[in-house]
């Protein structure tokens, strides 16, 4: 039985110092932060509560004392962390065509906010090695599974050969502990990608198995010039005092809305720091590797240009105030730090206090960019002031524009079915869902969420044409066809929630949201579907094979929200 004593979590989880920026100071109600969530209840009435609750939010009385119906799991089976190697920061691995990389998933000792845990890492690094390859390179990756669970490596967003996609039961057999697998990975598209297991992502990804890939285009002006480049891997970790909140051994807990951590991490650590010079233009490659959290990141008021997303640049660069990333999404942005001083990297969202029925601004400082008075050289001010168009992107998209307005070829409805949840959860959800937030930015009711497992919650992709659900759906499309997929996220389900829908091995365009055409496109592999929204995706089904389509909230995937799309080998229109 889980019985975790709520220790002095506020101290344990003392996060990076919060920096005030002008925008936050203007608000009448000061934002709360995860600091407030991590360590609030110290009175005896809450001492048995295993899950940190948001400030001011009591546990629902009917749920007190209940535990999820799964066996708790933590990695290492009680291994003394002191006997494990300490996790190291990521290192850049520059690879050329036909190079080989050994990638080992193993146990590490990882210290977060002064607390040491047994966790996972690729090659002992968190994030895993940053693989940098030229576009159109093909590399060999010898994967060695040295963790205590089956695993694979999925090359997220890469339009590679199907057998290397890393999906157990679809493209390969899962690699058992101690086993090995060789992947051949070809990179046809420039941009930012990532790799992670496709087995129990709710556990393995959450515990550190993720890494980035930057695919460099041959064009020297693919991006505008920048003084420096950095990756920002956004993650969160759910901790209570000295303890990781255990995972479900048989299947995921937190099945209702996914595991939302209370310690926010950049590149695997709290308190990100970066030094820059006055006027420096920094290109950031952002990736959201968290299980469930959608982020809204800004750079202390520094101007931001968004350049690219998952699989391509945008048609046109845009100025933005912040960067919104659903799980698995990537964005490339450029930020200019004009004045010397400290710029807070902040995640700012509107949380919902379900107890008071109010929105609560929440701002968490992820780190600080310290800008010195020394001027940046070269001076890229002029280039930063220019919003470039990328006609090559538009020209390629133009080939697909005739399909934008065609009727959908396929339609999915996103919903959920539950059984056997605690009565108090059912009662609360019934009255709580009078309003459905299009995006739940943070877990406002972690007690209910924690108790829900894949035994009680089945997240559903439903094919509107056949009524079939999840892996019972059997879609075949011809290679080379352009498939319009309409996805509706049903707001009237038991627990409506946003879903980041990821399609393996192909690329797609988000052509409209709720009937409104999108005006500035980029190729994507993951698209956020807010609650109640209808989103039209145009899939370039050019890569043959059996490909997963699923929600990238790890617990939703674990609770069934996945299907396969079969892109048949013959091209559309070919004689067969």
């Amino acid at each position, binding site marked *: 039985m889980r019985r975790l004593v709520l220790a002095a979590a506020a101290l344990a989880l003392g996060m990076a110092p919060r920096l005030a920026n002008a*925008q*936050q100071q203007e*608000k009448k109600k000061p*934002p709360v932060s995860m600091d407030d969530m991590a360590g609030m209840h110290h009175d005896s009435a809450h001492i048995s509560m295993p899950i940190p609750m948001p*400030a*001011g*939010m*009591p546990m*629902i*009385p*009917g749920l007190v004392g209940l535990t999820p119906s799964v066996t708790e799991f933590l990695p290492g089976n009680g291994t003394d962390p002191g006997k494990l190697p300490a996790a190291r920061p990521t290192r850049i691995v520059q690879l050329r065509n036909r190079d080989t990389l050994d990638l080992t998933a193993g146990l590490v000792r990882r210290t977060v906010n002064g607390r040491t845990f047994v966790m996972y890492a690729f090659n002992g690094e968190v994030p895993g090695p940053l693989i940098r390859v030229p576009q159109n390179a093909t590399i060999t990756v010898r994967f060695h599974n040295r963790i205590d669970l089956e695993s694979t490596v999925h090359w997220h967003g890469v339009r590679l050969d199907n057998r290397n996609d890393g999906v157990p039961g679809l493209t390969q057999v899962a690699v058992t502990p101690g086993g090995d697998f060789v992947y051949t990975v070809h990179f046809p598209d420039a941009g930012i990608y990532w790799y992670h297991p496709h087995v129990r992502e709710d556990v393995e990804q959450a515990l550190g198995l993720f890494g980035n890939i930057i695919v460099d285009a041959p064009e020297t002006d693919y991006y505008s010039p920048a003084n420096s480049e950095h990756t920002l891997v956004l993650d969160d970790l759910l901790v209570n005092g000295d303890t990781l909140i255990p995972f479900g051994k048989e299947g995921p807990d937190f099945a209702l809305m996914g595991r939302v951590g209370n310690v926010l991490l950049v590149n695997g650590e709290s308190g990100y720091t970066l030094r820059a010079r006055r006027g420096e233009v920094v290109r950031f490659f952002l990736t959201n590797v968290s299980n469930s959290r*959608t982020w*809204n990141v800004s750079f202390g008021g520094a101007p931001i240009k968004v350049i690219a997303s998952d699989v391509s640049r*945008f048609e046109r660069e845009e100025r933005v*105030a*912040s960067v*919104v*990333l*659903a799980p698995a*999404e990537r964005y490339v942005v450029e930020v200019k730090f004009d004045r010397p001083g400290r710029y807070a990297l902040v995640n*700012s*969202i*509107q949380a*919902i206090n*379900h*107890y*008071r*029925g*109010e929105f609560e*601004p*929440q*701002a968490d400082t992820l780190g600080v960019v310290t800008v010195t008075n020394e001027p940046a050289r070269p001076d890229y001010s002029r280039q930063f002031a220019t919003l470039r168009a990328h006609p090559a992107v538009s020209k390629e998209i133009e080939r697909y524009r005739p399909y934008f307005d065609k009727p959908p070829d396929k339609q999915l409805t996103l919903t959920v079915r539950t059984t056997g949840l605690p009565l108090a959860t059912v*009662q609360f959800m*019934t*009255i*709580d869902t*009078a*309003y*459905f*937030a*299009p*995006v739940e*930015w943070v877990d406002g009711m972690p007690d209910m969420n924690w108790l829900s497992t894949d035994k009680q919650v089945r997240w559903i992709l439903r094919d509107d044409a056949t009524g079939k659900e999840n892996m019972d759906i059997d879609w075949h499309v011809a290679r080379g066809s352009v498939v319009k997929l309409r996805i509706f996220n049903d*707001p*009237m389900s038991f627990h*409506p929630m946003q879903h*980041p829908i990821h399609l393996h091995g192909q690329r797609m365009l988000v052509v409209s*949201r*709720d009937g*409104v055409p*999108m*005006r*500035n496109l*980029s190729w994507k592999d993951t*698209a*956020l*579907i*807010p609650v*109640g*929204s209808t989103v039209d995706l145009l899939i370039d089904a050019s890569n043959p094979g059996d490909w997963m389509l699923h929600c990238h909230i790890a617990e939703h995937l674990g609770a069934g929200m996945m299907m396969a799309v079969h892109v048949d080998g013959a091209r559309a229109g070919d004689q067969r």
Partner: protein
Amino acid sequence: MRIVALIALSAVPLLVAAGPYDIALFATPKAPSAHGSARLVYAASPFGVAVTADGRAQYDIQVTAAELPEASSLGAFKAYVAWAATPDLSTWVRLGTIRNGTSIVGHVDLNKFLLVITAEADSAPPRHAGPTVLHGTSPSGWLQSFLNHPMFRGITG
């Protein structure tokens, strides 16, 4: 008994809030035959949703109205103007003019707001001054408070 009460409570807002983007508009005695609705549409954004730097959703608003009388029939007025107001009425944002049929007005980034249609002497008045003819509440206005709910009685946050 408690379950019955909960179901009854939950049913009320659903009668007027069809989804996270829909606003039912209600008439006032100034124009009792008028009726309409509004829909929140995410503003243009390169991201999956449009939000401000502090995370507030940014919407354009589509107002559909019917049986609005001529504004001049209500007095010295020439146009109907849509406003978004915070629930405490401390902040009013002029969204644009509307007429019978569908009008797209914008742009709202308030967490909770009232949508108010007033008759005005000018199509771009600096502040609302004329009579209200239609009004509604943003879907987020239906967010429930459990502060005094029996489920939490005796519990303090």
